[in-house]
């Protein structure tokens, strides 16, 4: 059931995490409104007429908590607040849109967003996949925690609560952007090194952020950065879209993977 006018929508504004989880339930018929940068245009243009809207801004889900080298970031934390987050997340956040949008857009929206206008969205996904982030969500069956790459592949029916990761020892970032502030990133590659090993995350190489396991495995097996970079094509699901063709992305991807790995080697 979809409402036919905005006036018919029921707006629920929980004031605590527990209330938000309770109001979300199993997620059926619920539209979650975070910062509004993704859903407001849908409503402004009449493409979305939600029945029940969960307005999260007062639900106590924002903020960054550091505990030693571990960071826990609430779903409603704005992208602007992440500009100073550990790399490569900080760089990815600074590359999102412009000042006003970053101040409004949230981490949760960036991870739950679907490909829009046939363009992959979610610039922060590559960074958080590379950081090995764990995502805690609520929904059918209660709360659960899972690797972020699994969550972004199927975010429907879950209420994102928080993201947790360990600060890496080194990080690398490489991306291709169009010059306009509001163009989504064509392709972004993030790499991190932690005591547990090396991880590579991709944004723009598929409908959602992807983990480049083939690259990680090749490097662990002793391949050079150049050889391992080519393996990223095994993990990619590149598509034609408004920003770039799949053909172009396939040629760009190994180059950006190698640049991110080189950036990592730089000891940042």
């Amino acid at each position, binding site marked *: 059931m979809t409402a036919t006018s905005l006036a018919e*929508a029921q*707006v629920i504004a929980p004031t605590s995490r527990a209330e938000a989880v309770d109001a979300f339930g199993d997620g059926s018929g619920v539209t979650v409104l975070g910062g*509004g940068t993704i859903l407001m245009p849908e409503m402004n243009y009449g493409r979305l007429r939600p029945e029940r*809207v969960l307005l999260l801004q007062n639900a106590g889900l924002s903020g960054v908590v550091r505990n030693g080298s571990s960071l826990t970031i609430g779903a409603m934390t704005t992208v602007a607040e992440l500009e100073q987050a550990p790399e490569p997340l900080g760089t990815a956040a600074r590359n999102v*849109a412009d000042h*006003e*949008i970053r101040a*409004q857009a949230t981490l949760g929206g960036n991870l739950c967003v679907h490909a829009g206008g046939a363009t992959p969205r979610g610039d922060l996904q590559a960074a958080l996949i590379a950081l090995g982030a764990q995502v805690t969500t609520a929904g059918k069956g209660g709360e659960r925690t899972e690797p972020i790459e699994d969550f972004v592949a199927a975010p429907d029916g879950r209420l994102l609560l928080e993201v947790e990761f360990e600060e890496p020892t080194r990080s690398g970032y490489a991306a291709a952007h169009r010059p306009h502030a509001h163009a989504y990133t064509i392709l972004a590659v993030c790499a991190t090194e932690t005591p547990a090993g090396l991880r590579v995350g991709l944004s723009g190489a598929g409908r959602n952020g992807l983990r480049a396991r083939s690259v990680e495995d090749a490097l662990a097996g002793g391949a050079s950065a150049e050889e391992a970079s080519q393996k990223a094509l095994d993990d990619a699901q590149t598509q034609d879209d408004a920003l770039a063709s799949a053909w172009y992305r396939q040629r760009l991807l190994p180059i950006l993977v190698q640049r991110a790995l080189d950036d990592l080697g730089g000891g940042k």
Partner: protein
Amino acid sequence: MRLTVNGQQHDLHSPPLTSLLTALREELDITSPKAGCHQGGCGACTVLVDGEARRSCLVSLAAVNGATITTVEGLGTADDLSPVQAAFDEHYAAQCGFCTSGFIMAATALIDRTPKAGREEILAALSGHVCRCTGYIKIVSAVEAAAKGDVHPEQVEPSFDPEEAAVLIPGSPA
């Protein structure tokens, strides 16, 4: 929904998911925020929400219930322009004027949070604002002047040299 807009309190009757932009323009008749793209991409609808620049098209009324909103109407008057307004006037930083309100609000917020903002900071802060007349150079000059406090509100008349105009537009009757 209750808002304080330019110092005046209003009880609004638009549905809670109406954009702040639509509510300001259509319910309150405050028309300086311009309806450009309705999707956050042009910057023309930028207003201050509790002192911070926000795209009013991306904010639902429900999300700003109780907030204080400032638009260009709340900055200065024709006889008493705000420093940013005066700088825009002095530097002739408006052409068709459609983007001007958004630029002025974003620049006002920038100078409020970074009083001595330099050119790079200004470019970064205004990067999401589009001027389709492409009059960016004069806009950035105006904001630089306002940030430096180099504004002379008494000289509100732009200087106009007919001979210079004739050079710029050969054959022009000016």
